[in-house]
């Protein structure tokens, strides 16, 4: 396996029992997948790590049906997105609302910190504001925004991952960005 081996080739090799291909695939996608699920879960890293593991497990249990050379990345993020949605359906609404309120109420406390830490703390607070702003989006828009601007999937890949027409992906992206602009302007001012 080389760094230039495609995901599709690795997936095919895994379906034939290649453990080295599995290691290469996980090393390649562990970090971005963790980032995706961390953002989907509003910064809950522990939960994101659990979902990453579950994503790979679910992938593995169906890998023997993989149709080469079907694009692998949309399939991976389809699984991850479905798991995130399942979590939302099972999560307690009160806990979710509390999480949103906690994120939105996070205030930068640069006025109370030494100057040399000001940049780090501002960055951390800004991250909390962004996380909170993303959580205010409906899940349908949040998925599209995160897949586009953090995972850098193309519109076609997002459409395939979410089983949507490309036009729907575009419209959700547009509406989601506008809402985020409004929320972030209010929270970061």
């Amino acid at each position, binding site marked *: 396996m080389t760094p230039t081996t495609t995901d599709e080739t690795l997936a095919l090799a*895994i*379906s*034939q*029992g290649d*453990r080295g291909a*599995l*290691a290469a695939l*996980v090393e390649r996608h*562990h*970090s971005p997948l*963790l*980032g*995706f699920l*961390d*953002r989907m879960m509003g910064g809950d*890293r522990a939960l994101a*790590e659990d979902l*990453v*593991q579950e994503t*790979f*497990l*679910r992938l*593995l*249990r*169906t*890998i*023997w*049906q*993989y*149709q080469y050379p*079907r694009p692998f990345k949309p*399939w991976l993020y*389809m699984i991850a997105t*479905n798991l995130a949605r399942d979590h939302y359906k099972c999560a307690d609404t009160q806990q979710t609302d509390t999480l949103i309120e906690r994120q939105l109420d996070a205030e930068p406390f640069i006025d109370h910190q030494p100057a040399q830490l000001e940049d780090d703390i501002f960055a951390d607070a*800004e*991250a909390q504001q*962004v*996380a909170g702003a*993303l959580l205010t989006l409906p899940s349908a828009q949040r998925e599209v*925004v995160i897949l586009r*601007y*953090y995972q850098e999937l*193309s*519109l*076609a890949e997002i*459409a*395939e991952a979410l*089983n*949507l*027409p*490309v036009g729907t992906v*575009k*419209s959700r*992206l*547009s509406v989601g*960005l*506008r809402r985020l*602009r409004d929320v*972030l302007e209010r929270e*970061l001012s």
Partner: protein
Amino acid sequence: MTDQHLIPPDFNAGEDAELNSELLATIHILKRWTAPEPSADATAHLIQGLQAELHETLAAFPLVSKSEGEPARVKVNLSVGQAARSVGEWNPSNNWPPLLLLRAQLRVVQGEIWIASALIMLLGVVVALVTARLPGEAADLPLILIAPVVAAAGLAFLYGTDADPVMEIEHATPVSWSLLMLTRLALVFGFDFALGLAGSVILTLIHPSLSLWPLVGAWLAPMSFLSAFAFLISVLFVDPLVGTIVSFGLWIMQAFLRFWNVTLSFQTINLPNLLSEEARPWLLALAIPLFALSLWLSDHRDSFIRRSS
């Protein structure tokens, strides 16, 4: 490199320059949120666990050697349901492909469809039994009216992103999408047909004046047409709710035609009475091409998404 590629492609840069700059600023703020990176140990631990899982998964499926010394790809069968169950439960003696496909899709179809269909059909039979005691009321009418809409709603909800919790399995399977959908259609329609038949048998046993097969024919033809119509609408709009609402609306209009014996017309076009005996052969004949069209559309939607990028 310009950042304009970050802007959603449906924005007009010329007319919305100020909006574009605001949105670019928003996108840059978003991108400043960096997610945590997993440690090398965490990745190694994950790989170790997954490799053990891979070993167990593949141990459940025997390798098929195509030639000596050259292990072939793991034999793929239509055992889609095996992927959804825990490793180790697969029984090699039950691998007749159509049966495996039916069992696999049985696990994927929403459980609410079975329960709701049975309850509503039961309600129809009960109402039929109660109203039959009233003078001048047709004993079979509630069942004839309810059976088609139950099937239509059930089939409408077979299609759509919200209806399939394990859609990635379907996208990974070697079976065509249309064959999967046909299997689900057969399952749900067959279930509703069985419910309608059971209700009809009960009614004919209690009311000897009713004949079984004419009664079945009275609801089967509209059920076939309305189900196919609802499913087609769901596929066209990628929304089962639209399919349900439109088919219900059509059926409510038909109830008006039957109960009040009126003719609904728009300008010079008279809307047909789908509950009439004359309409039954046409309804059955129309159902088949409607189902075929729906399956073709649902199968080609994936290709359309990729080509439209």
